[in-house]
């Protein structure tokens, strides 16, 4: 069964360990601005929201890519950027309505969450289990997909 990142913002303390772990795992630097997961801080409410790609079924990023640089990893279901193929055109960064594909000026390519190939560093680093890597509960998944469909134009899902 496919697994997904389960995010429970109410458990997040804003410690940024996930951002550190992500940037180190993927970019070999401790630099939150290079992290593929981001913590948003709602100062007024004392609330934090971890946020990253949901590996959505619609995969707007993948479909908008002009050179097939974003592919689905059959093992994890993640939509992964193939660095060698990416030309850095950034169309996926505007096509993703969740804002979870970012352009990396240093490499001239885009970066997004790839679930670390099935062993996400953010979940491992999170001390409060606000981010966990769990089996996708089928009912929950269907409900989420229905929600996504309602709010956004169309699904790339074949059937």
């Amino acid at each position: 069964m496919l697994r997904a990142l389960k995010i429970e913002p109410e458990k997040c303390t804003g410690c940024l360990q996930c951002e550190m772990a992500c940037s180190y795992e993927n970019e070999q630097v401790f630099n939150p601005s290079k992290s593929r997961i981001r913590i948003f801080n709602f100062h007024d409410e004392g609330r934090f929201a971890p946020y990253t790609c949901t590996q959505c079924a619609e995969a707007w990023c993948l479909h908008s890519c002009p050179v097939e640089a974003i592919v689905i990893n059959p093992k994890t279901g993640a939509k992964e950027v193939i660095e060698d193929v990416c030309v850095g055109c950034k169309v996926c960064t505007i096509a993703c309505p969740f804002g979870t594909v970012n352009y990396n000026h240093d490499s001239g390519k885009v970066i997004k969450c790839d679930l670390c190939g099935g062993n996400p560093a953010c979940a491992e680093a999170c001390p409060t289990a606000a981010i966990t890597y769990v089996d996708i509960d089928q009912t929950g998944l269907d409900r989420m997909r229905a929600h996504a469909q309602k709010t956004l134009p169309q699904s790339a899902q074949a059937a």
Partner: protein
Amino acid sequence: MAAAKKKPAARRLARPARMRHIIIGAGPAGVIAAETLRKLDPNAGVTIIGDEREPPYSRMALPYYLSRKINEAGTHLRKTPRHFKKLGIDVRRDRVTAVDARNRQVKLAGGGSLTYDKLLIATGSSPVSPPIPGMDLPGIHPCWTLADARHIAKHARPGAKVVLMGAGFIGCIILEALARRGVQLTVVEMANRMVPRMMNTTAGGLIKQWCLDKGVRVHTSTKVTAIEKGPDGRGLRVRLDNGTVLPADLIISATGVRPNIGFLKGSGIKTDHGVLINRNMQTSNPHVFAAGDVAQGLDFSTGEYSVQAIQPTAADHGLLAARNMAGHKGAVHRGSVNMNVLDTIGLVSSSFGQWMGATGGDSAELCDRNRFKYLNLQFKDDVLVGATSLGLTDHIGVLRGLIQTRTRLGEWKEKLKHDPTRIMEAYLANTQAVGFNAGMI
């Protein structure tokens, strides 16, 4: 899907004969449609007819070929060897010269014709040459096809004098690639700013300033009046209406494109600027559909039907057209958001939807001229309807998300007017994008 499997075998056998889908045009719209049709109907015949001499490729990748980031193969839409063969998609190199809608046939330049059950027109657009004396001289190229790009690559050597006519979206993308090749570049644009149909005066002005700082000469509010042979018979000369005469080794014309609809004359299929389609991507003929740069489809923001001529719309169209061709009910187009992202020698800009504003709407703006940072948000009531950004690359897709979900921003509108950069927080606060995988697995 599970329900379909339970259907008795007899029902399945009674299905109609194998469908024959024909797609004209092997660009992204045509290829995505073909692949989607294959997924939806494993038995259907799927044929793509494309008139270019290359395997299906992406125009969008051409600037990166010119800047040597990729080779020719890197522009190909699909990278797996024998991709189309494996999928049972027949890709033919030929040119459709006419559509006989009554007999459901397409005529081929190579002779003969093919019969279809459903036809998709995905023929894209072609560059328009402006009516300027001398435009037919050798050394003047559009940058539209891989063949054009090969020519340009040959002549745009370091130090070569290159004049780029047109600083629209396509012009500016080529500008970046040319600058990287180390040519001496001069840009001539009729409008008062760069990318006039994507950027307002402030943003377009900042892009111009950025280019000037990088050593690119830019003439805005300027027209080319004539192109002539150089004095010693070598090279070219470009005359501008401000009196300047520019010597040029190479001239690139990026002055606009027009949908490829000529071959539809006499077919009865209705056209305006492009092929007219309804929200099922269907033309005036129920068996014929259209997608991509050639199609005049629904614009999400304006509610009008227009040719958007951008890659994400071509992808949306291709997908949706295929679902309709396969008979899927409910595959209704809700309109595409017009959007662009541009990298001008390192300055990244983007624009979305009604970036120019909506009647009766209001806006929020942040402008840091010295650091080339700019963000402009356009609202109608408390809904984001358009945006322009400069120098921002993080989470910009959420601008599309907010526009397309018509999210009511409530109190967040005021917060954004205070600090427009808080778009991501506004999104998170106003959608249930929290909880299980941000609520949107």
